[in-house]
């Protein structure tokens, strides 16, 4: 209120003064006496009441600063561009973070939404069954309401979307708004569905007559009754494309989840009662869970307000990226700080005189900081423009390069800026201004009355030391970024260089629910142009192969395994080294035979022939969750063949042991629990369309996913490519800024030392000696910076050492290469100033002054 009145007075400062003057004139006329008290003083004190005096001096600072910029437009433009670039990159980063972690979903009261699951013995987690969900709904705490959902992939219009079977209260609880038609309600138990706005637009061409249309989901017809609002795509990590009633799940899921005894994999999301914290909600939930799951040890709970919950884990995951971006901004600040220092030094005379005339230091610092802020605000505008351009460019690049299999499932959040982004930009730009402005301001306003009175304005060497430190810091940060980039690049190269061993060209992964698999298998086997078909539990390259315990000589031993039909080895062209593959009869019977990888054969039976050996499979102590683990129903199996080891897991895990499948057990297309039908086409041209046509003859959209295996591998490699791009981009900018920073410092240094160089030349120093002197200085700075950068990189290396095998932070090549690049850059940057130093004419320099 008070502030507002102040503002109003500032706004009408002229009127304020006029009125006050009139009042005092009136007073004087009436009193008719000679001057009684000072009018000026009265005015001055009245102004002070409203803070007008402060405003006045601030206006002066602004005017003064603007005049200065007009005189040195190159300096102002340089600062604005440099800071703008740093701000722009960080704003880009923040915009992405905002979209995924800060901006809540457009649903009712998103902050109260929490998902949760229980942790049982051995740290395994488990979701809920339908019966448990019903039980929880009858309770009144800690949630006011809870919805349940199963997610499953489904094909619509030739591409895969995430579908959800949801309990009837889903739309009522979230109230996301509809673009058309009506949402699902608790009364909907039939084959009806709501499609998302995105699916409606992309797959149905925004068909205005979509309501009432029959669309097949997993081969079952559903009637479209609504289109969700544009802003709503569910509240899960992947955008949801369609919703069907939970009651319909038996017709689209493998097992009937309403049967008691069904393991259930229901994802529950609840709305906490007002005033109940997630921490406080855990205790009642745990005691509820213990009523039916005595082994439960805890409850995990995550906010569902934003796509990525903000907690310690996600912050840690984002930290390297945040730090890298912040470091670029820091370099930009160092550069600008240097430019300001150089400028301030040139103004040393002016400032020194003002100090000796009695200007307060605080006042001078304020004036210099005003200059910084005035430069930072246009830089913020530039940064905003740069960030918008970067985001647009990055999105284009992403969609142009991402493997289609991943692109279809990718959730691109709306990346338009909102008030958080603008707030961030403003706060960071002001912080930046203080960061790059404060050091030079404090440095140049140190009062040095003695020197000033002597008329000496240039003999202060502390700025030089400070500038050296800034450059060293810059080089260090740049080196750190270069090292990280090189490590990521080499990691990606290492992963790409992995021999995969699987022949992926022309191989497609067809995924569908179990009941459709036999038909798909048969249909594709009969299709012309199909070379081989296989059923598999755990298609390769989707993650580490599953592991199980075996007994050998009484001791337990872990081995990875998969279940495949005989065609698997033909589909991927995996050579059989010894023995034979399963027969159809063995596969159909899931007989007690097994194929072994060559590495495992050597490991289990060193120096012996593996064929003919027997493995013993112990009964597991605890019944494993069938959703995750599928053990062969055998107590022992005879090895009938040895096959070549092939990369079946994650290429990033290099280490061969976890990536190879040790044992292949037989299975067949009719077995429950297989996840893929793999098919090799003789000629891959037009493969997708041909496969779709064949599958549609079974039922429309009968398969969930149709993915070329080459894409599956590309998806694994994509994070490395993307990380490498970001790293290269950042390191490139850092290098550019560092080069310009070194150039600036050396150029300034040479001009400051002109007199000294002149004397040296006059005393007979050769051109080479002068050149060496300048280059040595810059090489020293770069060397010190590189050493610090390498030390920092080695200091953080342990954090990354155990994350991924391909990322090897102790690889010496990135360090050596970085040191070389940084030194070369420093010498290149200082070459021009060095040439100028050589060209110093001693006669002219010694005469001036």
């Amino acid at each position, binding site marked *: 209120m008070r502030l507002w009145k102040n503002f109003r007075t500032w706004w009408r400062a002229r009127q304020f003064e006029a009125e006050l003057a009139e009042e*005092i004139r*009136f*007073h004087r006329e009436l*009193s008719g006496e000679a001057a009684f*008290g000072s009018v000026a003083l*009265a005015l001055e*004190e*009245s102004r*002070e009441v*409203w803070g007008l005096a402060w405003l006045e001096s601030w206006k002066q600072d602004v005017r003064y600063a603007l005049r200065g910029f007009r005189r040195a437009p190159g300096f102002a433009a340089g600062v604005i561009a440099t800071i703008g670039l740093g701000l722009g990159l960080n704003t880009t980063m923040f915009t992405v973070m905002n979209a995924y972690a800060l901006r809540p979903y457009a649903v009712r009261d998103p902050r109260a939404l929490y998902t949760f699951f229980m942790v049982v013995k051995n740290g395994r987690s488990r979701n809920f069954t339908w019966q448990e969900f019903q039980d929880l709904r009858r309770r009144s705490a800690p949630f006011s309401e809870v919805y349940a959902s199963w997610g499953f992939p489904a094909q619509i219009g030739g591409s895969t979307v995430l579908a959800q079977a949801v309990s009837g209260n889903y739309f009522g609880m979230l109230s996301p708004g509809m673009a058309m038609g009506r949402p699902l309600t608790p009364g909907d138990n039939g084959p009806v569905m709501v499609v998302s706005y995105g699916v409606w637009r992309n797959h149905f061409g925004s068909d205005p007559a979509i309501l009432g249309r029959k669309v097949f989901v997993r081969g079952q017809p559903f009637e479209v009754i609504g289109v969700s609002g544009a802003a709503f795509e569910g509240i899960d990590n992947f955008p949801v494309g369609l919703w069907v009633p939970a009651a319909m799940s038996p017709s689209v899921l493998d097992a009937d989840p309403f049967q008691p005894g069904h393991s259930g994999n229901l994802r529950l999301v609840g709305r906490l009662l007002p005033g109940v914290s997630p921490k406080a909600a855990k205790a009642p939930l745990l005691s509820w869970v213990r009523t039916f799951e005595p082994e439960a040890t805890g409850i995990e709970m995550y906010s569902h307000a934003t796509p990525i919950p903000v907690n310690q884990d996600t912050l840690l995951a984002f930290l390297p990226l945040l730090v890298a971006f912040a470091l670029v901004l820091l370099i930009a600040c160092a550069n600008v700080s240097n430019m300001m220092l150089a400028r301030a030094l040139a103004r040393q005379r002016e400032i020194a005189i003002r100090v000796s005339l009695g200007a307060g230091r605080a006042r001078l610092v304020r004036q210099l900081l005003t200059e910084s802020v005035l430069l930072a605000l246009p830089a913020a505008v530039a940064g905003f423009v740069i960030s918008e351009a970067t985001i647009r460019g990055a999105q284009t690049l992403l969609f142009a390069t991402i493997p289609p299999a991943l692109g279809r499932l990718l959730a691109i959040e709306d990346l338009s800026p909102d008030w958080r982004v603008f707030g961030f930009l403003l706060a960071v730009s002001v912080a930046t201004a203080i960061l790059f402005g404060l050091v030079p301001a404090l440095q140049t306003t140190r009062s040095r009355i003695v020197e000033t009175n002597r008329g000496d304005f240039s003999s202060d060497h502390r700025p030089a030391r400070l500038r050296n430190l800034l450059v060293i810091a810059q080089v260090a940060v740049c080196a750190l970024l270069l090292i990280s980039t090189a490590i990521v690049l080499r990691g990606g190269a290492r992963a790409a260089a992995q021999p995969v061993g699987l022949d992926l060209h022309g191989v497609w992964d067809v995924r569908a629910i179990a009941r459709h698999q036999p038909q798909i298998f048969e249909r594709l086997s009969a299709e012309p142009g199909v070379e081989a078909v296989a059923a598999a539990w755990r298609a390769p390259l989707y993650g580490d192969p599953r592991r199980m315990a075996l007994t050998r000589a009484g001791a337990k031993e872990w081995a990875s395994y998969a279940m495949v039909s005989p065609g698997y080895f033909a589909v991927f062209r995996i050579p059989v080294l010894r023995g034979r593959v399963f027969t159809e009869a063995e596969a159909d019977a899931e007989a007690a035979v097994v194929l072994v990888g060559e590495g495992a054969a050597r490991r289990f039976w060193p120096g012996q022939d593996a064929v003919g050996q027997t493995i013993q499979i112990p009964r597991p102590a605890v019944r494993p969750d069938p959703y995750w683990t599928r053990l062969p129903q055998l107590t022992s199996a005879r090895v009938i063949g040895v096959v070549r080891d092939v990369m079946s897991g994650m290429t990033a895990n290099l280490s061969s042991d976890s990536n190879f499948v040790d044992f292949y057990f037989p299975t067949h297309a009719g077995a429950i629990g297989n996840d893929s039908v793999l098919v090799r086409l003789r000629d891959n041209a037009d493969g997708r369309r041909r496969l779709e046509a064949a599958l549609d003859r079974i039922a429309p959209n009968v398969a969930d996913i149709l993915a070329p295996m080459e894409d599956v591998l590309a998806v694994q490699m994509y994070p490395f490519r993307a990380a490498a791009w970001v790293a290269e981009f950042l390191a490139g900018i850092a290098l550019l800024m560092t080069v310009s920073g070194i150039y600036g410092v050396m150029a300034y240094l040479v001009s400051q030392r002109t007199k000294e160089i002149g004397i040296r030349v006059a005393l007979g120093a050769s051109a080479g000696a002068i050149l060496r002197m300048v280059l040595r200085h810059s090489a020293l700075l770069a060397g010190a910076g590189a050493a610090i950068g390498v030390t920092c990189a080695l200091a953080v290396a342990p954090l990354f050492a155990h994350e991924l095998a391909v990322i090897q932070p102790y690889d010496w090549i990135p360090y050596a290469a970085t040191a070389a690049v940084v030194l070369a850059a420093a010498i290149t940057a200082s070459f021009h100033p060095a040439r100028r130093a050589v060209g110093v004419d001693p006669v002219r320099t010694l005469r001036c002054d």
Partner: protein
Amino acid sequence: MGIARPTNPGADFLPGTLEMLILKTLSRGPNHGFGIAQHIQQVSREALRIGEGSLYPALQRLLRDDCVEAEWDVTENNRRARYYRITPAGRKRLQAEKQSFDFLLAGIARVMEAS
């Protein structure tokens, strides 16, 4: 406290005393700056004279603190003048200041009368 005929009474007033006097004056009815100074001078029998240098800043402070309102009006002699009017907040402040002033005065008196 003000001493007879000081050149700059403001400097000798205890902090807040001038505002209290202004508020007291205005509690009798709206007045302009000169009228306020006039009234204080007359009632104090010339003991307190207030110059523009302290009167107008004090009035601005009171305006800022919402203790008075100002409005331009015409005097009996048809001159334009800014009239100040006490607000409820001003009355409350007058009350408070008067109390603490009485307390202070009593304290001073006790010290002075102690032998």
